[in-house]
């Protein structure tokens, strides 16, 4: 029996050892980097799945690329969770050569330290476009959200999403002719709609982030980029008393108390309110939402037997608030290509990235996949024309939620979203909301 027990222990220990080693991280500094010359093939793991419009565009351009250069591309259409699949390969030291995703996803899921500096891609000529470099076609205003700590870009974008104020021009044509410029004009327009028996604002209140858009936009418009993330990262909590926060949160308090949102909007389930905006059963007019709204709203309308052409999508920038330090600020989040630090065929992958940035190729993201591209010289899809104009005039851009979701995810989940919930339930005044944020943020940093 003794022998058996000893044998068991040895075997168990061996198995534990093997597994722990397997679970450990590979931080081999000698792994191959981008020093290699362009090979004749590279691997690309994509965030799109087979059948999606973006996938079709990319697949067809990959085929063209192979025909023209002879470089084979081994593609895996992995879907949105692609970065989760990349992590173990990264740990093992053999990641794919090219991946795509939103810039905040790269920051939070892979970490920018694990991504290559793509400065040389920005310096590359776009094949077929006389002397135009990649850096010439990506607006300067977009760069801030694609940089590593040292200021080098880690992403080359091919699509841009953002949030803005949407309306249906068939219902409220007045917003097309003369969109409100200031918060006062905006409120006057809302009051007019309310007086006419409408509910001015649609909002799926079960999604805290959608409620939060209203506070964020006010704070960013009034206080400029970083007004939200900066406040979250301030261990004294003092920045929540800044004038931008005061005016923005008092504005939202009035919206909630004044009944500008649909009745019971906090207890309904997404996409009830958005769908009721689309088919007008809720008699709502404006919705502060991402640039995916046209495709989602048309889709839900079509599914419920409605006519998607009954919506003429229009949008206008969030009006000026308070001191208006965020004038010309646009929420624009880039989705694009990145190359993991240990990629073996980085040079070939880079070649493809520059190739895809050609106006005619990237334009298919707009014409076929109905999304906005980072290139302002590409014709946007009709329903995004308003947002494209806003983006084209951008002085500066921020990520969704001012990037605080990637900078301080725990703060967002544990402090921001619960407080937003209370504000929109009407359980906190603007003042009490700021106080709660300040107190809890101090505590949060103390607990660090």
């Amino acid at each position, binding site marked *: 029996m003794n022998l058996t027990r000893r044998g068991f222990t040895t075997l168990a220990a061996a198995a534990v050892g093997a597994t*722990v080693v397997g679970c*450990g*991280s590979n931080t081999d500094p000698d792994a191959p980097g981008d020093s290699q010359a362009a090979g004749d093939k590279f691997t690309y793991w994509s965030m799109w799945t087979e059948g999606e419009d973006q996938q079709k565009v990319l697949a067809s351009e990959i085929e063209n690329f192979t025909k023209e250069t002879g470089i084979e591309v081994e593609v895996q259409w992995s879907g949105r969770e692609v970065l989760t699949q990349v992590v173990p390969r990264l740990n093992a030291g053999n990641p794919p050569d090219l991946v795509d995703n939103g810039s905040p996803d790269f920051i939070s899921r892979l*970490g920018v330290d694990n991504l290559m500096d793509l400065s040389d891609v920005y310096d590359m000529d776009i094949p077929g476009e006389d002397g135009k470099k990649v850096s010439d076609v990506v607006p300067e205003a977009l760069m801030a959200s694609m940089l590593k700590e040292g200021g080098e870009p880690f992403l080359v974008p091919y699509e841009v999403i953002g949030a803005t104020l949407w309306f249906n021009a068939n219902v409220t044509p007045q917003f097309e002719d003369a969109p409100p410029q200031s918060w006062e004009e905006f409120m006057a327009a809302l009051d007019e709609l309310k007086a006419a028996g409408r509910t001015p604002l649609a909002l*799926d209140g079960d999604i805290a982030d959608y409620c939060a858009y209203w506070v964020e936009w006010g704070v960013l418009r009034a206080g400029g980029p970083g007004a939200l993330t900066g406040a979250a990262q301030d261990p004294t909590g003092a920045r929540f008393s800044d004038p931008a926060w005061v005016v923005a949160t008092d504005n939202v308090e009035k919206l909630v108390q004044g009944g500008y949102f649909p*009745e019971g909007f906090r*207890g309904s389930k997404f996409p009830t309110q958005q769908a009721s905006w689309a088919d007008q059963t809720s008699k709502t007019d404006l919705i502060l939402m991402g640039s995916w709204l046209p495709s989602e709203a048309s889709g839900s309308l079509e599914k419920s037997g409605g006519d998607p052409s009954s919506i003429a999508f229009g949008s206008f920038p969030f009006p000026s608030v308070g001191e208006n330090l965020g004038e010309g600020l646009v929420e624009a989040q880039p989705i694009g290509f990145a190359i993991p630090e240990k990629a073996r065929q980085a040079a070939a992958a880079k070649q493809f990235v520059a190739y895809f940035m050609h106006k005619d190729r990237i334009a298919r993201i707009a014409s076929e996949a109905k999304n906005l591209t980072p290139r302002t010289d590409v014709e946007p899809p009709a329903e995004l024309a308003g947002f494209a104009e806003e983006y084209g005039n951008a002085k500066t851009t921020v990520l969704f939620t001012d990037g605080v979701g990637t900078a301080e*995810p725990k703060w967002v989940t544990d402090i921001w*979203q619960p407080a937003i919930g209370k504000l929109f339930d009407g359980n906190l005044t603007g003042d009490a909301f700021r106080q709660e944020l300040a107190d809890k943020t101090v505590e949060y940093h103390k607990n660090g």
Partner: protein
Amino acid sequence: MKAQPITSARKDVRRSRPQVSPAEVARRKLYWPLLAPALLIYVGLLVAPALYGVYVSFTEWSGRGEAPVWVGLANYARLTRDELFRTAFLNTLAILVISGAGVFLLTFVLASVLREVRWSRTALSILFFPFLLSPIAVGIALSLLLSPNGLFNAGLRSVGLGELVKAWLTPDLIFRVILIGLVWVSVGYYLTLMMSAIGRVPRYYYEAAELDGAGRISTFFNVTLPLTWDVVTISAVLWCINAIKVFEFIIGFTGNGDAPPPQARTLTIAQFLATTGGRNPQYALGLGSAMAVVMVLLISVFVVAVRRLMRRESLEF
């Protein structure tokens, strides 16, 4: 104490007859080849990762590229200061105790009734049905049912109980609804266990109780409960484990890809949010592992406590 003489007797036999039987030799030869694969898989895929999880709970680790950094008890210390974790912990206990009371009360009542009725099998199948469905699907379906203009409110309005209509999914009500929902989803399972135990109880005990003039309640406490005590104990243990681990139902119920409101968070949800869950994943794998360790300890405490409290001499019949 009896084992001793037998072992020594066997030793004596061995000493006197050094060659073991061919069957015994074959058995010994096969021992490791047969055991090793299962052992390797069990240790490699279960025991080792679990121990690794305990190790990770003492580190700070994002799970990608870089190695875990040892931080000692910092994650546990952080949990003690974390107000939302406390809420999640208390919510889990609330599910365990309040929903648990509901589940067992309903199980006992239904079992007493079903024992006597003719269509008990059909009723049992219907009651068991929610347990067969994916908890996510049940959660989503229930949440649609309870939305402001959902069937439930419409039903209340149609029978003239309009004043009872509420926005059931708002953060201040949602947890109470979850407590009730969990009872509804779970009761079929425990009732099935209970009914199979009751099925083993000889009918004459019930007939005797009836002749003695015992009512339903008295019959339950004097016949059913004592004679099914072992199954009730097992059910209680299973409930402790399931209640602490409940996750999918709440995610489905509150689910929209966002983090559930703090009022509806449990230990598993808190762990999900600290690691890869929600719209803003935190990748705090050390903190998440610490929560997992707390959860395992909690389960162990409750399981041991329940087994101790419910230990009784089992009745033979």
